């Protein structure tokens, strides 16, 4: 087990900078997830920790030891790849033991490690099979097994579940979570799927365009996002954004008028400096924070386009008078028949024109 520290880590491809000074402290035994849209630099960051990609600036330390110039094999890490990267011509057993055999590890110890990994991942019956004779989930288990036999200080996962179907993804997610509890090893996991991030992580690192937008525990990010990007990225369905304008202040705080609905005003307490009256803002409302008319601060008229019934919960896909799309969460028993309804906003977030949170 080990800590992983990234200090102002930069990555450039030629003149093009793709990671702009990342600072992250991963604690011993922690499960940290790097999440962000495609091309945000999260995989590059992981590959820099693994040593598969050179770093252009900054420092990376694993277990307190600077590893900038240390070979990948000597960093005490093991990596699970998106495409599994199994050796196609070897059996599962050979895949697991290959690295140990090549480095002259004693046979008894190799056998012990392979046996332990196969028991942990319940792949004992697959040991003689080749990768092509395995399902996607089984292949991924073998890939994880290959990482386990190395007995690393840190596990690195590069989008390990993205090639699996939805059902298997949920199953493997639980298995990885169980594995973390069982091994207690530091794990760094890259995904573009915010649900994976929310369910697996002790802490999440949200990235966009090579920048770290926010680091925090899953529910902290959900309840207290620093900016509009994090607010929109974390949560499913996404947070709704309705354009508005500051019209003044009252005893409750700053008063925002929603675009296209002059009579709908939302008061939001702010501890920091409030923007001037007339400033444009974005009002963020999570789907579950819409209530029935008269329940919350203010009422908003929306036209319902589509209703999705998911069993206990339903989602109403609607549009405001100004044309902003919104998703409203309701109990299945509480779905209105009318095509136009009035909803209240029980809780909202304010973001300025640059997308920064107004607190």
């Amino acid at each position: 087990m080990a800590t992983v520290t990234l200090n102002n880590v930069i990555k450039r491809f030629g003149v093009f900078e793709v990671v702009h000074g990342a600072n992250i402290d991963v604690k011993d035994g922690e499960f940290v997830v790097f999440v962000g849209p495609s091309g945000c630099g999260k995989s590059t960051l992981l590959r820099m920790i693994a040593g598969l990609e050179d770093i252009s600036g900054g420092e990376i330390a694993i277990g307190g030891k600077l590893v900038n110039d240390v070979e990948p094999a000597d960093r005490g890490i093991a990596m699970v790849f998106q495409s599994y990267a199994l050796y196609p011509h070897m059996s599962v057993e050979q895949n697991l033991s290959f690295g140990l055999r090549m480095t002259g590890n004693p046979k008894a110890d190799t056998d012990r490690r392979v046996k332990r990994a196969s028991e942990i991942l319940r792949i004992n019956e697959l040991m003689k099979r080749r990768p092509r004779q395995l399902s996607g989930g089984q292949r991924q288990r073998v890939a994880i097994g290959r990482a386990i036999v190395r007995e690393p200080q840190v596990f690195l996962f590069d989008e390990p579940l993205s090639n699996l179907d939805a059902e298997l993804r949920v199953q493997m997610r639980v298995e990885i979570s169980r594995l973390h509890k069982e091994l207690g090893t530091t794990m760094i996991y890259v995904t573009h799927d915010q649900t994976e991030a929310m369910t697996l992580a002790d802490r999440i690192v949200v990235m966009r365009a090579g920048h770290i937008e926010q680091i925090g525990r899953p529910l902290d990010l959900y309840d207290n996002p620093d900016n509009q990007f994090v607010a929109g990225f974390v949560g499913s369905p996404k947070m709704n954004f309705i354009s508005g304008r500051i019209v003044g202040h009252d005893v409750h705080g700053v008063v925002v008028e929603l675009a296209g609905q002059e009579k709908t005003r939302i008061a939001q307490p702010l501890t920091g400096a409030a923007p001037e009256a007339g400033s444009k803002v974005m009002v963020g409302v999570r789907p579950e924070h819409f209530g029935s008319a008269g329940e919350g601060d203010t009422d908003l008229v929306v036209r319902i386009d589509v209703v999705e019934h998911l069993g206990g919960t339903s989602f109403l896909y609607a549009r405001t008078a100004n044309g902003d799309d919104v998703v409203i969460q309701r109990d299945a028993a509480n779905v209105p028949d009318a095509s136009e309804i009035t909803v209240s906003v029980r809780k909202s977030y304010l973001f300025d024109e640059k997308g920064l949170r107004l607190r």
Partner: protein
Amino acid sequence: MRYQNATAYRFLAPYLLIFAIFWVWPIIDSFMISFQATRTVPWRFAPTFNWGRLIGDPAFFNALKNTLLILVIQVPVMITLALVMAVLLNSPLLKARGLYRFAFFAPVVVGEVAYSAVFRLMFNLNFGIINKLLNSVGLPSVDWFSNVTPAMALIMIAVTWRWAGYNAIILLAGMQSIPEDVYEAATLDRVSKLRQFFFITLPLLKPVIVFCLVLSIIGTMQLFTEPFLITERGGPGGGTETLGLLLYRQGFRSLNFGYASAVAYTMAGLAIAITLVQLWLTREPK
């Protein structure tokens, strides 16, 4: 559906007709000719005339021996060389990769007569650059065209020069289809580059290597140009005569088409047999 098929076949008919006349029929006809005595007109049916002669013909066994000797020595050497060239071409350290790729492939597109003429000049006893190079390091000149062993070596060198690059390009394509992350996983497993080559690249490249071997075996069984043009019709004294050359000599110089057909079918049969044995030896375990 049946009507559509009929229409399709009507469109295909001109091609199929030409294919049948100029491709299928000669194959069948030559097989039938191999059972005829064709040294005198009129030809007559004599099933054992050519095939019987084949079994006892020293010229045939000489050509067979030469062909198989070239096959056994030249093909493995060429494939090994092609593999080395493919590894070099695949190296990220190599600059001007496109230029090398072109250079390695160029011998295939050079005219056979031109390349043979250049080889004859290069290996000339008195003024060839090869003998000059041998002399410069203190070795005596070699008469490449008058002695059997150097002449066979010359044929093998020429064939290797011509086809190694071609095979290297095929092997390179195979190498580039091996996913990079397999090597990355091996790097993390502390496997050295050399061991990665022997334990990952070579096994994964096996189907492509087998493909190159099959192509080379078929090509060598039909070898004609080099012994015809470089060592002047299989010289010295038939020392480099191959089955292809024997076929040509019998068919187009002696006009003994029956015997030439029997040789042709023997060549094809041997190529198929050797290829099948080789495919069986290199088959994937289930």
